[in-house]
């Protein structure tokens, strides 16, 4: 099985408005395929935090939200995004303990968790979020090391998990995804594994363990599941993405192969000195000393490889989007039959 690299989207920015990313953490898609990116920004300063809207061709549509503060459009430590079937955008926020819900235009609608929430649900560090086909919401809670299933009215259906490393225990869980059968996959971050649960929260299987070998993980932050049940895991600490089959067998490692995005080309074209210096450089070939051989250092020293792959999402066209917070971009891969 081989995925096929398609393109790179994005460019870095340090501006509080406009296109470009500052520590993007996640993307999601509305029913028409428009992309919503969670631009986390520098949360320590509350700078640059917002949701940005664009499409696969990098056409820019706008943005909303900002960092710090407690208003309906403010985020403290936003982590993940997801649309339900009604095209309502959910944004989790570990800092405020809320999941804020917006229209496609960015109009605040209501929230899950927190003081003025719909339903009765207290969340402790809501992190990853995902919906099943019935619009039930799954939330990983970092601070409580548990998974919570919430109905459409914001009420808890069940909670499962507590801190630990046994099955159905978690250690600061992060990303979460569902498959076509309604099963749930949790990126059990500090346990270096993926846990699969059935829709009722019963344990099914653990995939992976700590390490750098194929099928091993170092702080997996996110998992996406395609229509065939294959898993795409952002192996965050190993600076790579791993593809596993439905049984958890290793299929492939993606290391990243970024190229210049449309926005990047446009920027470099109007900055010819940097474009020229860049063209006479070799940003791919490495001869690193021993103390810089870690995946983290390799990622930081190269440009085309993943650095900070934090989120994996799949759109309706069977395209895999890998968001890299440290490179401020999204690498897109074809995972359809044609791409295999």
């Amino acid at each position, binding site marked *: 099985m081989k995925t096929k690299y398609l393109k790179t989207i994005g460019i870095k920015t340090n501006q509080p408005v406009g296109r470009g990313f500052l*520590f993007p953490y996640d993307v999601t898609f509305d029913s028409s395929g428009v992309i919503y990116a969670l631009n986390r920004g520098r949360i320590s300063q509350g700078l640059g935090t917002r949701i940005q809207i664009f499409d696969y061709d990098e056409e820019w549509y706008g943005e909303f939200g900002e960092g710090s503060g407690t208003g309906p459009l403010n985020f403290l430590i936003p982590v993940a995004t997801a649309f339900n079937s009604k095209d309502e955008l959910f944004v989790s926020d570990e800092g405020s303990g809320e999941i804020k819900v917006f229209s496609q235009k960015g109009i605040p609608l209501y929230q899950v968790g927190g003081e003025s929430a719909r339903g009765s649900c207290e969340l402790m560090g809501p992190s990853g979020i995902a919906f099943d086909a019935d619009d039930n919401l799954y939330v990983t809670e970092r601070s409580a090391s548990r998974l919570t299933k919430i109905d459409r009215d914001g009420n808890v259906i069940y909670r499962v998990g507590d801190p630990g490393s046994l099955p159905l225990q978690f250690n600061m869980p992060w990303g979460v995804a569902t498959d076509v059968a309604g099963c749930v996959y949790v990126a059990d971050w500090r346990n270096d594994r993926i846990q699969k649960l059935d829709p009722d929260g019963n344990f099914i299987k653990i995939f992976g363990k700590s390490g750098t070998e194929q099928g091993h993980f170092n702080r997996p932050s996110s998992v996406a599941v395609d229509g065939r049940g294959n898993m795409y895991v952002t192996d965050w600490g190993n600076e790579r993405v791993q593809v596993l089959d439905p049984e958890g067998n290793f299929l492939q490692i993606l290391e990243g192969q970024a190229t210049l995005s449309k926005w990047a080309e446009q920027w470099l074209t109007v900055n010819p000195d940097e474009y020229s210096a860049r063209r006479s450089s070799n940003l791919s070939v490495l001869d690193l000393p021993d103390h810089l051989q870690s995946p983290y250092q390799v990622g930081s020293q190269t440009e085309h490889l993943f650095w900070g792959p934090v989120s994996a999402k799949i759109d309706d066209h069977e395209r895999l989007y890998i968001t890299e917070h440290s490179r401020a971009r999204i690498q897109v891969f074809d995972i359809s039959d044609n791409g295999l």
Partner: protein
Amino acid sequence: MPITRENIKTSPKYRQISHLLRRAGFGATPGEMDRYMGMDYSEVVDELLNVSGTSTMPDDVIFRMFPEYHASLGVDACANWAYRMVSTDSPLEEKIALFWHGIFATGNDKLNNPLVLLNQIDTFRRNGMGKFDDILLDLSRDPAMLIWLDNQTNHKDSINENYGREILELFSMGVGNYTEEDIKECARAFTGWSVKNAEYMALMGQKDSIWPYSRISWHYEYRQDDHDYSEKTFLGETGKFDGADIIEIICRQESTARFISRHLYNFFVEDEVQVPSWQEVPPKNPEAISTLMDAYFEHGHDLNKVLKVLFESDFFKESEYKKVKGPAEMVINVLRLSGGFEEPSLSMIQAVDEAGFMGQLLFYPPSVEGWHTGQEWITSGSVLDRVNFSSARLTDLSSPGIRDIVNRVRDRCGTDTRPDYVIQVFLELLGIIEVSDMTSDLLLEVCGGENSVIDTTIGSFDVMASNLLRVIGSSKEFHLV
């Protein structure tokens, strides 16, 4: 009874170990002192010097919360380092990195690449207590230093003397111990010592460019075809020297041993005059410098051994409170005392900013010469920042470290509720602060006077403790080490 150094009822061993940990670390919490008091002084020295398996707040936990801490602005990188300093159980490893950062001062204002500075600090952690030859060799291959001093433009047919000059003047021998010709020959030996894609990286740094995909970290590259392989004469020796040969010659010099010894003395023992005056002003303690120089040569330039001699010397043990706490040292000391950094927090950025307001924003030295130290840390503006910061943190009784100190004092006081005793215990737990008569009078006043009785019911005791800690944090003595 006035509170004086003499009547603080603390064992000599406690005093010595506490002093050692203030100098070789950032001060010990009461809990840490409990552990260290189970060891001999020399065992503590050995543990500090022989670092293995350091435990700190894990990078992954920090980066999950703050991905900007490794790839964004200089102040974010400061916070990254601050977490290490606050949470490490190998404090000398961080203190020695701070020591070298002050000498091999490299600034983000020119590099605009915090990641390479964090890598440089990591190099200091790795080799900062090793053989001085290795330290200089790693420094000379450090990409941050190479770009900082423009060595990427030091070509075989057109030398740039910048690094050649500074390695002699500021990093090893000091002014007056070499000639202008030696500088040129030194620079020739370092031609070709560059950075991968140096031209592009330097341009990005110069323009503070983060485009298109964030800053790219740097690594050393030896450009063979740009190295001057011809014969050179340096400090009276002639050969086809390259940079490593030059470093070997430098490290054999008596002036190098003296220069490093004075730096170690100034940082760990007693505030000295600033480096530019070293040519004219002799050391305060020539015998101590001589002892350190002897250790340098006797142990093959191994600074670990030199530091062992220093920490076990009488001149070190007798040097309590002869130094002004540097801003970073002060901030980290207070944060370690106050605790509460088990998880990353938004407040760390504010804390490192505070050190900047006090005159020492890490990664932003005022020049290649580094920061001036000692009494020069104290200005009318920095005093206010110091007092405000330390008082605010020390009086936050909700922070776990301060809560622990207050509870310990209350427990130890038991039925002895005399103000002077309560004050003594507070001072001891904060690092046996030697206080003047004026400060002791103030502290007694806070407690209601010499003959009052301390109310140990929790609410009243907390109020008294908070007031006492505010005065202690504001006192001159708290800012000495």
